[in-house]
């Protein structure tokens, strides 16, 4: 339980998510790493180059950390959850607290995670479809509506000449492993308490 929640702290060092954009002209794909504190380019000038290309289709520039409330709230939430997890873990270890709290932490973290994903997806929708009406290149869907350049939340999508792949990154995987560990902790706790009775 303690290890599991401490793994959340990996998010301060490693990106949560990663979006890579490859194209015929970009055999070395451009990429952005999404950290809980902000968005960084995979290579030094990737964000600048993504923005440069996006200006043709009227997308806004990639937000700076100070432009989105999420990047100040997320670190606090993660730090809070990690601390809470450690406290629950310690109390559980000294049998001051029921193992059921482990599950409670997991469920709370899952709800927060889903809310975070929902928020992230909303941003992607806005980023991909809230376009400058004076955009140089306007592409419409067959039904006449403007095409959305929303990158996928998870997986692969073709957007014009770009192949876009969106996957969790190291920080994200550490978080999932951490959450899984807390579930295991719950299961071990449950097994132990069942044996006692």
């Amino acid at each position, binding site marked *: 339980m303690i290890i599991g929640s401490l793994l959340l702290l990996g998010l301060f060092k490693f990106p949560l998510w990663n979006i890579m954009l490859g194209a015929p002209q970009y055999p070395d794909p451009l990429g952005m790493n999404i950290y809980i504190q902000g968005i960084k380019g995979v290579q030094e*000038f990737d964000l600048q180059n993504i923005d440069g290309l996006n200006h*043709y289709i009227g997308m806004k520039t990639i937000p700076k950390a100070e432009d989105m409330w999420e990047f100040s709230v997320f670190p606090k939430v993660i730090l809070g959850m990690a601390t809470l997890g450690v406290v629950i873990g310690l109390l559980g270890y000294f049998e001051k607290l029921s193992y059921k709290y482990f599950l409670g932490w997991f469920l709370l973290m899952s709800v927060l995670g889903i809310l975070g994903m929902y928020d992230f997806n909303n941003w992607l929708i806005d980023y991909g479809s809230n376009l400058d009406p004076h955009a140089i290149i306007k592409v419409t869907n067959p039904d006449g509506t403007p095409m959305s350049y929303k990158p996928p939340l998870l997986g692969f999508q073709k957007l014009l000449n770009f192949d876009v792949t969106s996957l969790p990154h190291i920080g994200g995987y550490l978080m999932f492993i951490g959450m899984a560990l807390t579930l295991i902790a719950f299961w071990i706790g449950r097994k132990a308490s069942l044996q006692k009775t």
Partner: protein
Amino acid sequence: MKKILKSTLAIVAVFAAFTSCNNSGKSSNSGALSSNNAEKVYVAPGEHDSHYAFISGGYSGNLTVYGLPSGRMFKEIPVFSQFPTNGYGYSEETKPMLETSYGFVPWDDSHHPDISQTKGKLDGRWIFINGNNTPRIARISLTTFETEEIIEVPNSAGNHSSSFITENTEYVVAGTRFSVPIPQKDIAIKDYKGNFKGALSFISVDPEHGHMDIKFQVLMPGFNYDLSHPGRGKSHGWFFFTTYNTEEANSLLEVNASQNDKDFIAAINWKKIEEYVNNGGGTMMPANYAHNVYDDNTHTATSTMKKEVRVVNPSEVPGAVYLIPTPKSPHGCDVDPSGEYIVGNGKLSANLTVHSFTKMLDAIKNEKFAGDAYGIPILNFEDVLAGSVEQPGLGPLHTEFDGKGNAYTTFFISSEVVKWKLGTWEVIDRKPTYYSVGHLTIPGGNSAEPFGKYMFAMNKITKDRYLPTGPEMEHSAQLYDISGDKMELLLDFPTHGEPHYAAAIPAEIIKNNSRKIFKLTENEHPKKALSDADTKVVRDGKNVHIYMTMIRSHFSPDNIEGVKVGDKVFFHITNLEQDFDVPHGFAMIGARNAELLIAPGQTRTLTWEPEKVGVWPFYCTDFCSALHQEMQGYVRVSPASSDIELSWSLGE
């Protein structure tokens, strides 16, 4: 005459033996063999070649970059010649590179590239090349693949026995082909003998930045100094120069300089002279020569004139210079990877002479001299001779080594490459070239550690090798696989200009160092503009300075008014891209210099002197993006008497 006939017949006989032998070997499985050769040079689309080859451009004045084994040309690097393709030598930033004591010299004849070395091994930091006509040495960066520095060589004329690198790149050495009066003066040409001298220049190379400085010049007798090579390993500290015209003839050299049975290889103990000079030896002599340095951060070259050079007469440093008799006007002077053997390619000799460094030291120690020339001791031919390759071919020019104990010599007259063994001097194999081969190159083949997989021969005559293109044709080169006992011809490819020599290196040593962009944060150009806020147009008398930016897909500003007939307009343009392979071009209608090609993060300046009233367009010449065709703008030119104020805008 009879003798020549006889030896020719003998060679023909040898040829016949070899060819018939080869034929019988090949006939059984020629199909399999030839397809095998195709595979050996096939680099699949998107794959990379295993080696870079840097091939001199001769009268193009430049250096070309090829891939091996495919023989594909990747780039022409402008060195000594103006290059309208990217504005080198036309832009204000690069014009100083071509300054000399003769003024602006926008061309040359580039001959012998050599890659920098550490401990005798190619380190792939820089490549040096000589300008033969207006004596200069250039240093080219192997990270930017641009010419970074050019130094003029005073007292030299026909900078041919250049540019060769000592085993830790202590010096790049430049020897003169023509001897001349030093200092230059108005004397009768027939007074050549005894009055003309040949300057051999040792140019130090700063180990960190590569900056060149002439440390000293050795003023040698008035011979012609043809080619040179450094000692290595045991002979490190010595330098060897072939000479011809030891007759000191000043006219009809084809006859008068071919009379002596033997010319010399001059052996120079540069360590000894360096020590002498470090202790204050030599004489500072007035001179005038240009030193041009390009800076990657200011993106600008500066040219300064140097006013003196240190000269040393061999007689001042006893024991530093010796002459080794070598038959018949030797051309190439090549030292094997161990440093023991010095090959003199006597171009009019039937045999190939190989000297022994150890024997040379013994002869010097025992003071066994055959005489002297202008006070320089001459050693006995027999005392220094290691051996000779008997009748290997006609017209030996140049030899390189595979690191496996074999040497490969080109024969201009019999148009072939001959492989022979060091020590036993036996001929192992011979293969024809097409036609009349000059130099050959093995990657690292003139270093302590050759990479003996490929060898290519650079020919002087093309004739029927390719589809005809009128009287003037590119030259041909042949690539051979030398990994086996016998050389195998793999590929025939055209080369640009007239390649005199090349240097080749495994790709992995340099390819990951190749720059992709120049960082804007490191741009220190005084006229840069890093954003729209920096763009402006400033009048300074008749000079109008336009600070402009370019990014996909517009110039900023792109509408400029207030320029007048008689003004001199300077477009200072910064490419704001920070993305690999997104240069932009700049072309102004009627510009009488060139267009510019500006790399990401770079600033370049083009001058334009408008002569006609009107509204004149400019545009991007490099197809940069889908909106490339929209990347354009206008300059309004008003009459000289007009009082229209300068104004500039974008998107209004």
